């Protein structure tokens, strides 16, 4: 039984509605990838830190989200407070753990954050238990709605919209504010910033916190679509790295575009050859690396 058989098998039932549905599903999947990759690449672009604890912050965000939702009954309150908490965690991580690593090789902070991710997972197991928590879809967003070519879950539509809003906010922050200008300048030439009298340490602190805040926010946003458990950040971290590599390390635009692309590729492969879906995103990465080693929107030589 080869791919040909699978293709012919599906072709008989292939309609435009099904294709549209599959693409929409892919965009919803890709939204989470895009958000996570955006956080990763902000941190990498500015600090050249490969944050291996990003998946763990995502997981912590999901747990805190479900916890506060249970406590207060308000999804919107959780949506506000969770990124604040993971952001503050990010502040402490940068100030006390990552900062002493600056000036050493790129693998120092990488190994440190890798270790940190295991600490966060174990702490979550101790505090919330190893089996995880039942996730709740916020009221008003349960069930599905007719989108013209079929029924699609309301929450996933909300997820796409929320992601768009968040990405727009971050874009405005980077493009239109003074801080954004400093961040942009900092990712190109940090020496000049120092010469101009900008306290680069503060910018690093802020960027790291923004990155982890976005990770936490992605966690709570993703939680109603999947089960919340201590290991949930591990596979998605690998997928987010694929997205950042495809988009180009350190490129926010690349992260968003590649996130959506990977989501859609995964979804379309699931339609034609479900067995290969998991593999497909790595094939995309391999192809991009062969044709454009710096990624779709990346600048060459950042890792050097």
């Amino acid at each position, binding site marked *: 039984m080869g791919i040909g058989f699978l293709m012919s098998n599906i072709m008989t039932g292939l309609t435009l509605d099904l294709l549209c549905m599959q693409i929409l599903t892919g965009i*919803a999947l890709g939204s989470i990838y895009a958000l996570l990759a955006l956080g990763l690449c902000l941190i990498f672009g500015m600090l050249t830190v490969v944050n291996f604890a990003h998946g763990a912050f995502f997981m912590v965000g999901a747990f805190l989200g479900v916890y506060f939702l249970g406590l207060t009954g308000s999804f919107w309150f959780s949506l506000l407070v969770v990124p604040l908490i993971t952001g503050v965690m990010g502040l402490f991580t940068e100030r006390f753990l990552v900062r002493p690593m600056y000036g050493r090789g790129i693998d120092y902070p990488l190994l440190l954050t890798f270790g940190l991710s295991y600490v966060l997972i174990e702490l979550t197991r101790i505090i919330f238990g*190893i089996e995880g928590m039942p996730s709740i879809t916020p009221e008003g967003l349960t069930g599905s709605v007719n989108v013209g070519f079929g029924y699609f879950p309301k*929450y996933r539509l909300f997820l796409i919209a929320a992601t768009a809003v968040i990405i727009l906010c971050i874009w405005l922050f980077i493009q239109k504010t003074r801080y954004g200008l400093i961040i942009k300048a900092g990712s190109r030439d940090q020496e000049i910033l120092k010469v101009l009298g900008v306290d680069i340490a503060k910018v690093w602190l802020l960027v790291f916190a923004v990155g982890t805040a976005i990770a936490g926010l992605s966690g709570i946003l993703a939680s109603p*679509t*999947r*089960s919340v*458990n201590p*290991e949930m950040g591990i596979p998605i971290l690998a997928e987010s790295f694929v997205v950042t590599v495809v988009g180009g390390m350190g490129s926010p635009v690349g992260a968003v575009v590649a996130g959506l692309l990977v989501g859609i590729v995964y979804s379309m492969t699931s339609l034609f050859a479900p067995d290969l879906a*998991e593999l497909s995103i790595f094939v995309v990465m391999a192809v991009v690396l062969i044709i454009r080693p710096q990624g779709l929107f990346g600048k060459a030589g950042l890792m050097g």
Partner: protein
Amino acid sequence: MSRKLNTNSQRRKLLIGGAAVATTPFWFNIAKAQTAPIKIGFPTPLTGAFSAEAQDQARAAELAIKEFNEAGGFNGRKAELLVRDDKLNPGEAATRTLELIEKDKVDYVVGSLSAATQLSINAVCKERKVIFNSISQSDAINEVKDWSIYTFHEALNPTMTAGAVARYAIPRFGKKIVFLTADYAYGHEMVRAFERAGKKMGATTLADIRHPLGAADYSAFLPRIKALNPDILVLCNFGRDLVNSAKQCTDFGLKNSMKIVTPVLLYTARQAGGPEAFEGIMGGTSYYWGLEDRIPSAKIFNDRFRKAYGGAVPSDYGALGYSGIRSILQAIKNAKSTDTPKVITALEQLKYDWYKGPEYYRKCDHQAVQSVILIDSKSKNMKDKYDVFNILQIDPTSEENMRSCAELGFKV
């Protein structure tokens, strides 16, 4: 040169003398064996996608140990449970089992919670000639290739459970079937068993869609399933995978056009997923605490579990942990010995009713012959948080719906 030789031989004498003093007298070793605890190793995936089920297995197993010890043990020897986390990884499971046998010197092994890990645990136990009572589903473990005289299978197998679900569901809901399958031994065996039973009733498979074990998102598979428009969608997955896929199928509105069934409808998954996600889903199980209305041993077991764990009820796989341990401990008493060959004979002769009605181990493959309970998930009129399933039907204890010994490759 000669001087050196001399000191060497002196040192050797000294060593021999020391060894003689260090060696404990023969009778002392026997005395120690009679008071040393009976050790049972218990590898199970405490962390990972099946952690909720695994924790309950360990809890219920402890209960069986406690009961045995409170009843005085065996000739004054108490039992001890050594729980190890196999992380749902066959390699890890083999390593932990080997450690339990070699380092911790366990007498027997009970446990596992995956069709894949139990085969690796079984392989280790088989090689070391240690009894292994598996409490997780598998068809392969009954087959002559993997089986050994040391292998016992307390859990149901896919042929029994998926078969029972197919026989119940196909006449009621229809013959066009789609499978959403976890891509490993468990999923494959469930599909095979469901199809085997379905074939006799004229069922056809429209698609068998495979997903990786432990996948978080199933949404990409769902539009296609909807478009295929089957009568029945069979979720051949377990633990968190079952929770996630049931939840996402509900979100995508699949239940409006098809019936969702699952060979093993887990109590723990239903608790984790909530009533909406599982509304209307039917499936099979080895045990549901609600059996206590009609089966006295279920009532006794539930009450003991409630007393030990603050009013909580045992889950299906939890009950298997209890039963798997209790059978071995009873066999020791019946055999009046902890010797492996004698315990094996005692297990083969055992007729027991620990918690769900009468059971016994079939002679050829040591499969526990037992009933399959068909249930569906409640979303209304629940008395309390434990009241989650309706019992639809009980498939009685019989060898009729199992593969025959000859089919499994045993010479009869």
